[in-house]
Every structure is written in C-alpha cells, then in structure tokens.
C-alpha cells in the first residue's frame, strides 16, 4: 500500500474529530449551569447555562455542534474513499449520515467508527491513533488534566513515525515529554502538520 501524505493527514484529522466529538458527547447533557459554563469556557465558548449548551451541541445548523463536526469527519472519510475498504467506507458513511441528534447515539456512532477503522490496514490505524492521542492531549490541556499517561501511552506510536522518516518530529516530541506544557504541545503539532506537507 502506498499511503499518501494527504490521506494520512485526513486519517489523522478523522481521529482528532472523532475523539473530540466522543468526549463532548460523553459530558452531555449538562444539568447545572456552573458545570456547563466551565465546560464551555474550556472550549472557548461563551455559553453559561446548561440548557443552551445542551441545545447548541446537538443543533444541526450550528457549525460547532457535534453533528456539524461529524459532518467534517465525514468529509475526511470522503477524501479517503479510494483508500478504505468499500465496507469500511460504506458503514462509516452510513453511520454518520444517519446519526440522530442525541448524545448517547453520537457516542455510539463514534465508538463504532473507531472500531471499524481499527480493522483497516495497520498504517491507516497508526495515523488515526495518533490523531486521537493528539486530540486527547489537547483536551486534557483545556481541562487542566495531567497528560503524562497519555504521552506515555502514545510514545511508541510516535516513534513509529520516526521509522517512516519523520525524524524532524523527534526533538519537539522529546521536549514535550520532558516539558509537558501547552507551548511545547503546539510546537509538536506544528511540526507534525508540517510533515504532511513536506516531500523528501
């Protein structure tokens, strides 16, 4: 299999979007305004009551809603149509197209999509997995959670990228491991994004 850089980038972003959607959906619905306001603030949203945030996240018309983000994930799937197996494409496309406006159903769709992608070729899943891990780190930073165990868990996967010739990533990854701060994280993701564009 020849994996295009652009395909790898679509897989990576698919991983990020599905993690993000799954994470937000797992917190819905909010029952207190304070809880909602704190969550919204972490996502840079100026919404301070539970009812509005619950509705906002499930509104099809809102560009930042979970359903809109699922559509963006579906865009990535369309771009990968020549690469994924026909079965994987059809099932993910079908699941996302028919997702109801319901937090629990959205979580289930995300889980099913992830398990379908896990069965695809190893290299495809590698980039998907890295996308999920990067989004998880991003999320943990937003919510002031410790990222050490995520970094530890994803370390060997990032190192597999080095074996593909993505050695430029190594310094920024090593720095992030020793200094797990937001700036170092951004420096690493900047380098990672850059790798999708360069050609040796």
């Amino acid at each position, binding site marked *: 299999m020849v994996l295009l850089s652009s395909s790898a980038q679509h897989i990576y972003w698919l991983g990020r979007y599905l993690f993000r959607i799954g994470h937000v959906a797992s917190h819905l619905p909010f029952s207190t305004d304070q809880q909602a306001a704190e969550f919204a603030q972490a996502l840079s949203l100026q919404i301070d009551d539970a009812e509005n945030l619950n509705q906002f996240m499930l509104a099809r018309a809102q560009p930042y809603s979970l359903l809109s983000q699922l559509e963006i994930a579906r865009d990535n799937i369309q771009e990968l*149509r020549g690469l994924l197996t026909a079965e994987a494409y059809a099932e993910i496309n079908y699941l996302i197209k028919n997702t109801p406006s319901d937090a629990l159903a959205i979580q289930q769709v995300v889980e099913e999509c992830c398990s379908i992608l896990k069965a695809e070729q190893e290299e495809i899943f590698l980039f998907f997995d890295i996308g999920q891990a990067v989004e998880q780190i991003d999320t943990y930073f937003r919510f002031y959670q410790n990222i050490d165990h995520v970094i530890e868990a994803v370390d060997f996967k990032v190192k597999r990228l080095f074996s593909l010739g993505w050695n430029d990533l190594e310094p920024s990854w090593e720095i992030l491991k020793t200094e797990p701060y937001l700036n170092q994280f951004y420096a690493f993701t900047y380098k990672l994004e850059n790798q999708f564009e360069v050609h040796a």
Partner: protein
Amino acid sequence: MTEQEHNLHISTDYYAPDQTASTVSTDSSSFISQLSVSTNLFEQLKSEFFNEMLDDKSFNGEASKKIEQWLSIRSLDELKTLGTQAKQHFLYQGITFNVYGDQEGTERTIPYDLIPRVIEKKQWEKISTGCEQRVKALNYFLDDIYHAQHILKEGLIPAQQVMMHEAFQPHMLKHHLKGKIYSQISGIDIIRDGQGDFFVLEDNLRTPSGVSYMLESRKISQKLMPDLCTTNNLQSIEQYPMLLRAILEENAHVDNPLIVVLTPGRFNSAYYEHAFLAREMDVPLVTSRDLFVDDDKVFVKTVRGRQQVDVIYRRVDDEFLDPLTFKPDSTLGVAGLMSAYLQNNVVIANAPGTGVADDKSIYPYVDKMIEFYLGESPILSNVPTYQCRDHDQLDYVLGNLEKLVVKEAQGSGGYGMLIGPQADSQQIEEFRQKIIETPHLYIAQPTLALSVAPTLTTDGVAERHIDLRPFVLSSPYRTEIVPGGLTRVAMQAGSLVVNSSQGGGIKDTWVVETLRS
C-alpha cells in the same frame, strides 16, 4: 393487498419517431394474472420497436425465457421491493452522484433496472470485434494526425477540420507514444435500430465513465437474483479493474510502474467511480495536491517520502492537466506535467489530444479510417450523420429539423441536443438560429427507432429504449474488452435520453452462451 397490487402490470408506453412521445395510460384490463403471464409476459410488450428480448432471430431466447419466468412468478410488489433494495444498496454503498447545477447538491442514486439486458455470445463477438477494430483505427488516426498526417494529405478528412479542432493539441505533434496507443480506455456507444442492426452512436476517448456502474449492476443482480444469475452461465466482468491495471502497466515505460488515478476531487460527479477504480486496482487516488514535478519527473507525496509516478490514469480534462501548458488558472492539474510527459518520464492515459478523434464532427469519418489504416470494412456501422459545416448538408438539416436529432459536435451527457420529433416549434426555431450562427458546431442524425428492452416501472413491466457502452482497453500488446458493458436505459416512457444526469438508468448486461436453436 389488492389483486392488482399482486399482479404484474404491463404498461404500453412507447415512443414513435414521427410523433410527440406520449405516455399511454393503462387501464384495469392491462393487469394480468400471474398464471397467465408465466409464458408470455414479454410477448405482450410487442410494439413497433425492436425488442431485444423478443425480436432477435439469432437468439434462441433461452436466457430471456428464464428471466421471463422468474419475473412471472413474482408480484409487482415483490419486484418493487427488490428495486427498493437495489436503491438502498446504492445509497448505503455511497454510489451516488450530484447533478451539476443542482443547487441543493442532493445525492442521487442511479436508477437500476432489475431486468437484465441479454446479449447472445455470437452477437457479442460481433460487437467486441467491431469495437476493437474501431479503437485500433482511432489510435492509428491519432498517431497519424500527430505525425505524418497521411489521411489528411490523402484528402480523406479535411485537414482544417482536424488541425483547427479545439481538442487538437499541437504539443503532441511528433511525440511518439509507446505502441501508438493514445486511447487506453475507450467507451463505444452502441445502439440497435428497428431491424436490430447494431450502429455506433459515438466514440468516447477522453475520459469515458460508467464502468463502475457496469460492475455494480452485476454485483446487485447477483445479490437480488442469485438463482437467475447462476442458471444463465454469465460471462464474467469482475476482472475489469485488474485488467485495467495490467493494461496501464503495459503502457508504462518501466517495469513494475507506480500507477495513480488522478481525480479532480470529491466534488466531481464521477468521484465515486474514480475512488472505486483506484481501490479495486489497489493504486493511490490522487488530486493535484499530491503530485509535483521535479527535473521533468512526476512524484507523489507519500508518508515515506516522494515516489516517482510512472502512469497517470487521469480523470481530468486536457485543458486542466497542467497550468503551465493549458489553462493557467487550473488548480486541478500539475505544473510541469506536460514537460515530464513529453520527456517520456510518465504515461498519461488517455493521452492529451485524444479528444480530437471522438468529436461528433470527426465521427462520420471513422469508417474511412478503418478502411484507410486497417484495409478492412467496418464491422459496426455508423449512424448516417449530416455535418452542418457542409453547405448542402446544412440546407437539408435546416429543412428537416422536425425529423432529425441535432447535437453539439463537442457536447456530451445528452445536453445541447434537439430531438426534432419531440420538440415544439419554439425549440426548433431556437435551434435553427443557433445552427445558422455557428453551423460547424452541430451535426444531425435521423431519429432512429432505438431498440427497447423490458423494464420494470412503477406501473409494471414496460418497454424502454436502451443503448450499450462497452469499454475497450488497449496496450501496445493487446486490445481487451470485458463481455458486456454498461447498458443505459431511458427510464421515462418514450424518452431517447439515456444519460444518468438526465434521469437515465442502468441495466446489468448479460452475455450468455445460448446458441441459435
């Protein structure tokens, strides 16, 4: 469920060339019981048109009888349910297309007709040898016009008509192609007339599409009618993607070439087919963003670094291929691609400049090409064609617009066409003005009584007009054609337009080994 819903309903819609198409409504007497239809369902569709399931004398009708029996023991509701399952299958698989100009971007599935079209093997041999002959001559023609131009010097085709043609590419002059193959993938549109004779309606040598529908219609037929498919000893078509890959490899300048499929992207109406072919051939599907040219070589960006590309199966039109050579604002092409191509560092399939041979104004000369290059008589005939650029022929066309089909020489997709017998006086007058202003842009053909085939409609089984597009694959070493092709069907009663963008549907095409009895 009522009695009527249970039973098959024969609809008697038809198209008469000399009158406005009409839908003849059926009354309750047209409903027939299951028992009574079991042996003569198709017989009741007899009309003035050549019915491929009934009227073919070279055919013992064994396969068609089996299909008839299979249909007869099912109610209309059962058949409609199968049709719905087919639609759901296409939707689930994402086998959809968007119609240009449709502001809402609605995903549409192509209408699939459950009732297959049957071609007897001996008939198929005539079609396939005729198509192969035609494609060989067209490839010779392309090589000739870009090199010695014998056919132009002999005066068989007006030189100006070729050299001034907008698809003629001066960049291709004196450029040698391996095995003189310009069109690696060709789609030849074939129709049958009222006597059942085969005619070539047009050649498609640029980026002929529809092969994925051919393959998908077979898959769904096997899913919905497994018993019928196995009893008829169908010639297989599933090998097409790997055959295409092998043909592209044989056109390469190197062993074990890296092949890519170049698509304009996911918003293109044929994106599904591009992705399908890439996946089935196990080659990368790329857009312009994935490719770049360095030192007159084409590379693709992969996660393991650059890799040199040897063959590009492009589904992008000539004018967008390279912004340095053609349209400077094209974002679909690759800067420097033509330079790499002209250095023989990459193969582009089909070759740039191939379109000059499939234009409707060049089409009338294909018979002459066959005689000139191959020294043979054409196996398949052309439809008589009037060239409006010719004064005498123009006069005839203008005087007989109500009887003729007028087409844009460079048109496709069934657009820009006048079907005289179906047009009103205002449409005819509008076309008259267009033809008078730019006669060289139009050709005209007599309205043929296109053959029909039994087709499942909402009202029951009815006859509908059909055509056939076989796909011919060419390499320097061989010409291949999988048995069958894409049968397109005009789903509207009386309509002659089979294009999917205008409501046309598809049928599975069965080449079967039934011999004359």
